[in-house]
């Protein structure tokens, strides 16, 4: 009675018109709050920022349209190029080691076992430490008589002026941020690794493939989706990194750690050239978008099952 009446239209819902309609309706409903939020708090400010990049706005009065002036100014601004270079080095220098290290740790650490679980818990601790606390700790560690010099002293090396040597300061920053993010990457990669189908590994093992071969030929490709996520997050995070540099070195000895966000901050809030700062942000945005798109393409972890 009701059963047949009730079921009939619903069964048709598994595919076809009804299904598409139901999906669309629920999908739209579920994503509406997100859409609204991003519209108000990100898209609108973004459009403002784009607009501001073509103006001269000194945080007083109204912005004044200046066309491409800001972009032209960037070309001959040594501060911008220095920051761009620092950011590039910093990004490459922190992303590559963190991901490689994270993979190296995650693969053995993702094996089941209580001890491994225990270690995984511990490894997240740096990631949970608040940034202000972290920067303070590391500024002490990198001090003349701090832990860093004590450790390299054990290896027989001379104590180094980590934070005041313009060659070293950026690497000190890289060490600090890598330390902080490693745990997070390991956990995410572990999650990805533990989701991989055991059957494939068993089969490969039976075929006689060695662990290295398995890793490169099977694990990595299967891990694509997770790797993509970690990579994008790492790159974007590095290129946007502001607070660590701000707290640890404030742009470092002679601009050695003046990453682009820090330069933008100074331009916008210290020099009160918000228009120019916005233009720089646009350039950074373009760079990050390009990189993200490239990553999505290469790893194709977006949509396939």
């Amino acid at each position, binding site marked *: 009675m009701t059963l047949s009446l009730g079921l009939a239209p619903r069964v048709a819902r598994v595919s076809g018109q009804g299904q598409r309609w139901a999906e669309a309706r629920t999908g739209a409903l*579920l994503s509406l709050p997100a859409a609204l939020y991003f519209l108000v708090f990100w898209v609108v*400010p973004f459009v*403002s920022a784009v607009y501001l990049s073509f103006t001269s706005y000194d945080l007083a009065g109204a912005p004044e349209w200046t066309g491409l002036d800001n972009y032209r100014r960037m070309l001959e601004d040594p501060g911008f190029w220095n920051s761009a270079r620092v950011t590039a080095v910093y990004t490459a220098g922190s992303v590559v080691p963190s991901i490689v290290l994270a993979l190296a740790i995650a693969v053995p650490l993702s094996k089941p076992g209580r001890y491994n679980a225990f*270690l995984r818990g511990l490894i*997240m*601790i740096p990631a949970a430490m608040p940034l*202000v606390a972290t920067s303070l700790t590391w500024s*002490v560690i990198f001090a003349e008589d*701090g832990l860093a010099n004590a450790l390299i002293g054990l290896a027989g090396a001379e104590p180094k002026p980590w934070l005041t040597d313009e060659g070293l300061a950026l690497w000190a920053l890289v060490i600090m941020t890598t330390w902080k993010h490693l745990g997070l990457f390991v956990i995410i990669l572990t999650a990805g690794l533990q*989701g991989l189908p055991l059957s494939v590994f068993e089969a490969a093992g039976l075929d006689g493939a060695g662990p290295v071969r398995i890793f490169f030929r099977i694990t990595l490709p299967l891990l694509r989706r997770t790797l993509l996520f970690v990579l994008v997050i790492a790159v974007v995070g590095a290129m946007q990194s502001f607070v660590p540099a701000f707290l640890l070195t404030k742009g470092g000895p002679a601009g050695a750690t003046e990453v682009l966000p820090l330069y933008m901050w100074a331009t916008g809030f210290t020099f009160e050239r918000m228009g120019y700062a916005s233009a720089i942000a646009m350039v950074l945005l373009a760079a990050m978008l390009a990189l993200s798109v490239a990553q999505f393409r290469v790893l194709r972890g977006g949509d396939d099952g």
Partner: protein
Amino acid sequence: MKVLRGTVLTLVVAVMLLPVYAMIAVSSASDASDLGGLSFDVSQLGAHVAQLFGQGGFPLYLRNSLILSLGIAVLEVILSAAAGYALAQLRFPGSRALFAVIVGTLSLSPIVVLVPMYLIVKALGWIDTFQGMIVPFMMSAFGVFLVRQFALALPRELLLSARVDGASELRIFARIGVPLLRPALLTLFLLQFLAQWDNLLWPLIVANNPGLWPLPVGLSQLQTEYDFSIGLVSTAALITAVPPLALMFLLQRYYVAGLTLGGVRK
């Protein structure tokens, strides 16, 4: 082989935790002279803690941080779960565009967005309020991205069979999607909590009433211009690390056990 692996891993973790220990040691320093050592003076540490809670305004900052971080984390999880699942499993017009926009905002620098966002919040009348500090950050591209990636791996068979059984899409989301995504959601909760716990700039700029200030702002207060006791500041920093760490250990089961989604594949 297994033992070797275990030892190496243990060493790696130990080295990673050295800075944390260093911080504890520094917190018990009484002045700038004995920072180098790794020694540890419990009574001094205790004195610092007492000082902070007595006159530092710390309990207030702590409370504010809890309100902000918990509030944001909860909202984040709910809204990202919905959006992430929808983007992964439901086809609807504009889903591609929405996802592109969301991931695009990852690349937008918070610094230049700061002033426009401030003006929007001001227009809403939310300056100097908790909602002014919470709502602009109640979602993140990271959250939606994370959920979507994990939602993509939800076992199709389960969803399909639920549809065949006649469940509505909403029901499928709530009864199947969310439970399966729970580890990811809890991880997201933790991560957002951590991220917001650290948020220094926005609360500083939006709140003019120090009664609303969260810990990071309070902490940078301690580092007044040229004179600060590093032991005291370090202790303060340590205290700010306690709640996130506690939360982390509490939720450990979920991400340590692995964010696997259902046992279908295995």
